[in-house]
């Protein structure tokens, strides 16, 4: 590798990136197979449920044919994947409108919530992680360790309930339901979103801070840090100029991994606050057994999860200078 020229090094990185992207797409395809297999294991129910108990067998057969349920499973899977890839997720059984329309009204809300949570959570988590790593073994580190360790194990609904009790019942500063008015000002939107954001932050910050701390401590034991210490560099400068550039890969990895906890957390938090997002749409789909809607929501969540993992992977490759300049 040492003898390789600049060009082949770039090629190697590009090949690795392409490989990762390809394997993510393959995983997404396999995930769709698993989701389809689980949710389609009991076929025929959809037609029966749409028509109700009083339907004659002939009606059911006709509807099954119309919905394509009488085709073999692999044909239905093929058609479903092809349609999904083209952005057509079928028709909701309950709302009687295209699934993509339903999702289009909810997805921006979820993205807004996720983006704002990320904006608050990432700096705080990095701060906590770095502070406790610099104080390794000290009182602050041990206290933060205990706090984050406990926060990781908290159920989301406890956090959300406590937030409601404190901010909306006792202090009366925030509404307990996050309805998004059609033409809200930024201030009103932020106020409506404050508690969901706080609840989600608690869920992700703990995990993110712990992983950030681990990533930095992993660097602290390296010889170059000792070298910097010996030549008299102050601790803050060691962290900002020496350690952070080296730990970018692991830290981005930690951030991406922890942000995937948002997906699970959102399911609870959106439901508690009645927030019109994708996760609460999915919960409704489960309650009403609206399979096309459920499948589409599940695939979106899985795709986001895989995207986060992919970003973590790619930054790890790009942040490694040995690969970049080889």
């Amino acid at each position: 590798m040492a003898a390789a020229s600049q060009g082949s090094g770039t090629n190697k990185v590009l090949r690795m990136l392409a490989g990762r992207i390809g394997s993510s797409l393959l995983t997404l395809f396999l995930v769709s197979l698993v989701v389809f297999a689980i949710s389609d294991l009991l076929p025929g129910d959809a037609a029966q449920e749409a028509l109700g108990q009083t339907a004659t067998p002939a009606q059911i057969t006709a509807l099954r044919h119309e919905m394509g349920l009488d085709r073999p499973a692999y044909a239905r899977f093929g058609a479903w994947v092809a349609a999904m890839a083209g952005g057509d997720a079928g028709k909701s059984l309950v709302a009687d409108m295209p699934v993509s329309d339903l999702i289009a009204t909810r997805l921006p809300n979820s993205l807004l919530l996720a983006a704002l949570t990320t904006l608050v959570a990432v700096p705080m988590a990095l701060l906590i992680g770095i502070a406790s790593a610099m104080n390794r073994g000290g009182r602050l580190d041990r206290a933060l360790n205990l706090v984050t360790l406990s926060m990781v194990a908290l159920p989301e609904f406890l956090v959300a309930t406590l937030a409601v009790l404190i901010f909306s019942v006792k202090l009366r500063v925030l509404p307990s339901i996050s309805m998004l008015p059609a033409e809200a000002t930024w201030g009103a939107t932020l106020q409506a979103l404050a508690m969901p954001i706080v609840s989600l932050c608690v869920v992700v910050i703990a995990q993110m801070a712990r992983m950030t701390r681990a990533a930095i401590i992993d660097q602290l034991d390296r010889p170059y840090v000792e070298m910097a210490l010996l030549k008299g560099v102050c601790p803050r400068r060691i962290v900002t100029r020496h350690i952070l550039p080296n730990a970018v890969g692991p830290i981005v990895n930690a951030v991406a991994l922890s942000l995937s906890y948002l997906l699970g957390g959102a399911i609870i938090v959106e439901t508690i606050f009645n927030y019109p997002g994708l996760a609460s749409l999915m919960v409704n789909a489960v309650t009403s057994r609206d399979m096309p809607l459920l499948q589409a929501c599940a695939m979106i969540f899985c795709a986001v999860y895989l995207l986060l993992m992919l970003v973590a992977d790619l930054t790890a490759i790009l942040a490694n200078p040995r690969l970049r300049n080889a």
Partner: protein
Amino acid sequence: MTKGHTLRASRRWARRLPVSGKVGLGLVLFWIVIALLGPLLAPHPIGAFVDRAVFDGSSGRFLLGSDYLGRDVLSRLLSGARYTVGLGAGAAIIACTIGTSLALTAAVGRPWMDELLSRFMDTVISIPSKILALVMVAAFGSSLWLLLLIAGLTYVPGNYRIARALAVNLYQMDFVVVARARGEGPVHIALREILPNMIHPLLTDFGLRFMFIVLLLSALSFLGLGVQPPAADLGSLVRENISGVPEGAWAILMPALAIATLTVGVNLLIDALSVHGKRG
């Protein structure tokens, strides 16, 4: 080893834990006792309407107040803990048994089998656990047995991943090579040579799976998709009393705190044990 011996040894072991680990151990033991004896300790019949007022606070008669129908929260909580701990432990046993069996199969079996199993597990692990559980609940339903199975299956890939890494490492060890040279079969190698040497990390992983499963099942029940009435686990108790939030009712806070003390306790204990293990 005699009974007194074991007791003394475990007491010595507990004393060596850091403070956070002791707190965790205490909480875990507390909840195990509650799960075993809970309904016997209940001061009131579990489903009975005993209070005329709803969402009462703590009082001498109702230690943890009353719920949205005027039932005793403490009694409901004591019986709910049985479902939460029981389902959690059962599902964690399912997850670890299936996961570890498959991991051992992958480690001692043929390469194509390892490839196939690992590819499958990698796929399933890329589905966030709550999403996977929701899809399964929608497809199969949520009777108690199904919930047990769904929660267990959801966490099989996580356990498989840990167990396979451990087993593949052990498979390279000298004593396994010797056993293979002796002509021992793959079943003997998996169960007699490899499994006994990975019990400790596997127990830690069992605790971790248990915590995840308790959180998952509580979340499902909280969404109304888990344990169905008349049965109620701690998550269901939070859900049914959600209308008490504006009053800050004990009926909603107590079950939520109960779950939190259980999961935080498990997490503290596991963390203390893994630090312990590394030192020792």
